[in-house]
């Protein structure tokens, strides 16, 4: 990232004009590229100035408010000038468990400013962000888009000292991770931590074989094979992939599109990052196979902003595939054209929801759409679009190579094949495990060497918090479904802190469109705090359950529809914990605690609080 002295107005003005002109020339005067424009402008000097918003608005025929709406929607876009170095410290629960508080304090001490602020010398801005997909190497942070893992006090001291010397961020990375993380185009300290490579995603793979084989089949036969394999979506919802492709293919009108969902925002999920690092071509071939099946010529990889460090490398893989004739025009000489573009996200969990993702890919605020119409009917640019998860597409590639029968010989009858799990939290061996469906939680805990386990969060905050009573349950679509996130908590952990972290996550990440999710979750959190503080009654437990149900039922998209799960599933599986916190005698305790509210005033004035029983 480059920084210029924006105190020199003349220099900047000329620079400004030319960069917007250059962008419009490069991408065309199309609002479709708005987020790309904004990201490139921000990359130049750290923020998007009002003047630029005005110029862009004029060029694109938008109002300034429309553009401001987009900027303020995303975590990683800003219209306020930040420091030269911007630290985004991950605040997910695994980061908290690994010592985030201490790391945060030392950043504050060293930088001389609090989180949410910029240091007085304008050098450092400290911010927090939701899960960045590094849960097995926490506490982690993004500094000017470069990933820093396993942070501690010493590392923070060293990093801030380097910042004072003006060292470029990339040069602060001294150790590199394993596998392709060492590739010259990646050079990240990120680790793959593949603990168990299974036969599908991390199995044998001969580049080019699957796409060649697919192109020798009719598109309908490709769909049939995927249907026969009973491949269910790996992104969380578990929709049958073959059926989705068939629906999309059947839409006769317009261009068709394939989108690979690499937004991976569910806290505790990092398997798509590792798949993209180690098996990018398997994913891209899967996109081409999907494209052939549905009749598309273009595929988009929607890559979350947090994985910017993989972009150049992935582009390089795409370029290599083009050169080898398995992407682009006339693939493998079989007359099929298909290419892939990378679209970058800008930081928003809700953009993993497929219709919000499409909005974001069109350069807008990532707000979900109403369904119907479904993306397969009207998706990207209102054209038939199939959105699939990274792992789903990689798996489809292997199904085409090895056949549906091979695939169905693994897993369970309903949940065929393998699942790549990302395991983090309290265990000896956190990381990536590709396992067959049907594995019990108990077997998984042994595999990852977890001891004294109190709870296992399956499927991230939107999933289910399982107690020991459920350790015989199986990971599969008909029992415990998961998009890949497994977070383990041992008996020293306070589950209330976990629930609080998850509730805060949903409050922060709600797109704000609909009332139950936007307001309801804040109210749910208030009620939860009352109970956690020991001021709850049995009535409060009933109410929190009822409120959770209202939010789940009436919210507009999957985010709101799952957001009360942290409370509801812990309440169902750890009821005794809640009961031990409440006041069983009282019928009613008011929301407002007068004694607490005046405590500070009492201390300052040296007066004692006395309960008023009689009114004069």
């Amino acid at each position: 990232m480059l920084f210029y002295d924006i105190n020199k107005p003349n220099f900047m003005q000329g620079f400004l004009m030319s960069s917007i002109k250059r962008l419009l020339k490069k991408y065309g005067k199309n609002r479709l590229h708005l987020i790309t424009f904004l990201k490139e402008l921000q990359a130049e000097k750290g923020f998007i100035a009002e003047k630029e918003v005005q110029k862009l608005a004029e060029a694109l025929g938008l109002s300034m408010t429309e553009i401001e709406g987009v900027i303020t929607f995303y975590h990683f876009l800003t219209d306020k000038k930040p420091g030269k170095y911007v630290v985004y410290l991950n605040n997910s629960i695994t980061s908290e468990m690994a010592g985030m508080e201490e790391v945060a304090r030392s950043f504050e001490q060293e930088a001389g400013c609090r989180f949410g602020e910029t240091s007085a010398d304008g050098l450092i801005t400290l911010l927090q962000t939701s899960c960045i997909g590094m849960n097995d190497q926490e506490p982690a942070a993004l500094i000017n888009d470069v990933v820093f893992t396993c942070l501690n006090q010493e590392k923070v001291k060293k990093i801030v000292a380097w910042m004072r010397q003006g060292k470029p961020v990339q040069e602060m990375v001294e150790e590199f991770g394993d596998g392709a993380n060492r590739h010259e185009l990646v050079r990240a300290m990120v680790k793959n931590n593949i603990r168990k490579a299974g036969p599908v995603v991390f199995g044998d793979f001969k580049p080019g074989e699957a796409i060649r084989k697919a192109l020798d089949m009719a598109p309908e036969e490709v769909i049939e094979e995927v249907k026969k394999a009973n491949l269910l979506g790996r992104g969380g919802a578990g929709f049958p992939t073959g059926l989705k492709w068939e629906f999309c293919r059947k839409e006769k009108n317009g261009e068709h599109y394939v989108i690979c969902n690499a937004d991976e925002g569910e806290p505790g999920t990092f398997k798509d990052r590792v798949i993209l690092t180690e098996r990018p071509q398997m994913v891209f071939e899967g996109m081409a196979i999907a494209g052939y099946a549905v009749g598309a010529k273009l595929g988009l990889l929607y890559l979350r902003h947090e994985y910017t460090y993989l972009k150049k490398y992935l582009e390089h893989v795409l370029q290599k595939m083009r050169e080898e004739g398995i992407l682009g025009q006339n693939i493998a000489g079989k007359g099929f054209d298909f290419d892939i573009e990378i679209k970058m996200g800008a930081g928003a969990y809700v953009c993993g929801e497929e219709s919000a993702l499409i909005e974001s890919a069109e350069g807008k605020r990532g707000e979900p759409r109403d369904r119907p119409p479904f993306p397969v009917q009207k998706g990207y640019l209102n054209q038939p679009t199939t959105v699939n998860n990274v792992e789903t597409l990689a798996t489809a590639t292997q199904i085409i190579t090895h056949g549906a029968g091979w695939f169905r010989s693994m897993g369970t009858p309903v949940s065929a094949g393998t699942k790549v799990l990302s395991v983090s939290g309290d265990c000896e061996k956190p990381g990536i495990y590709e396992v067959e469906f049907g594995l019990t939680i108990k077997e998984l805990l042994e595999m990852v060497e977890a001891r004294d386990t109190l709870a296992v969060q399956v499927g991230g905050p939107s999933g289910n918090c399982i107690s020991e009573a459920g350790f015989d349950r199986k990971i599969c679509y008909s029992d415990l479904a998961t998009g890949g996130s497994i977070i383990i908590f041992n008996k020293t952990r306070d589950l209330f802190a976990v629930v609080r972290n998850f509730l805060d996550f949903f409050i922060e990440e709600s797109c704000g469109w609909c009332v139950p999710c936007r307001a309801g979750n804040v109210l749910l959190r208030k009620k939860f705090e009352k109970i956690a503080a020991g001021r709850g009654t049995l009535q409060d437990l009933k109410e929190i359950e009822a409120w959770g149900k209202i939010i789940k039922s009436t919210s507009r998209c999957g985010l709101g529809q799952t957001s009360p799960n942290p409370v509801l599933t812990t309440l169902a599986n750890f009821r005794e914990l809640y009961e031990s916190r409440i006041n069983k005698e009282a019928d009613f305790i008011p929301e407002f605690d007068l004694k607490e509210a005046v405590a500070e005033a009492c201390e300052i004035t040296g007066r004692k609080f006395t309960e008023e029983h009689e009114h004069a």
Partner: protein
Amino acid sequence: MPEKIKFFIDGKECLAERGQTIYEAAKANGVYIPILCHFEGLKPVGSCRICSVRVNGRWMASCTQPVTEGMMVENQTPEVEEYRKAIIEMLFVEGNHFCPTCEKSGNCELQALAYRYQIMVPRFPYLFPRKDVEAFPTFLLDHNRCVQCRRCVRAIETKDGRKIFAMKNRSGQVRINVDRKLAAKMSEEEAQKAMEICPVGAILKKEVGFKVPIGKRKYDFKPIGSEIEEKSEGVKNE
């Protein structure tokens, strides 16, 4: 004759045009489903969720969901009504609504819904957020009262299709953001239209107030929704 779809609302047989939403079809059949964010003629957005109904155990917003053949819609069942009431209460605690001093009192759809649902005190704690009041040449925007229905966003545009009102931020920080330059060019009539389209007292035209005295306003005479229900009773009596 175009083919009609048969469906049911609380057991009552109804007919819908193909492509009609549950809300539209209900209205055409004289059944009131409460709405707040929806406005006749604008594309529905399903933001308030007050029109939620239940079909086969699944919840959906009736303003965006098309009717399908044989659909059994639960509209006035206790649970559906209870959930709607909760959402209305959420809106009251999420903003700062001091009805007695509001120019829109009596014409306000949120207030009218609260009366219809007999809300005395919300079950939720008040959040007392800090929100601003902004002034523009022809109107005021009081964020304290905004329910983020997006009607203004959908309805008010410049002639060349630029949005004068747009959404800003995310989550609980979502606000209506007005383009100052474009708003400065809004005429008196456009300000009037904006005020009328706003269901609450968030957009107020400047320099008019209490022209119609409180007590003589729209919902002071009849509860919200009665215009639809009366029509249906009229049909029955014929």
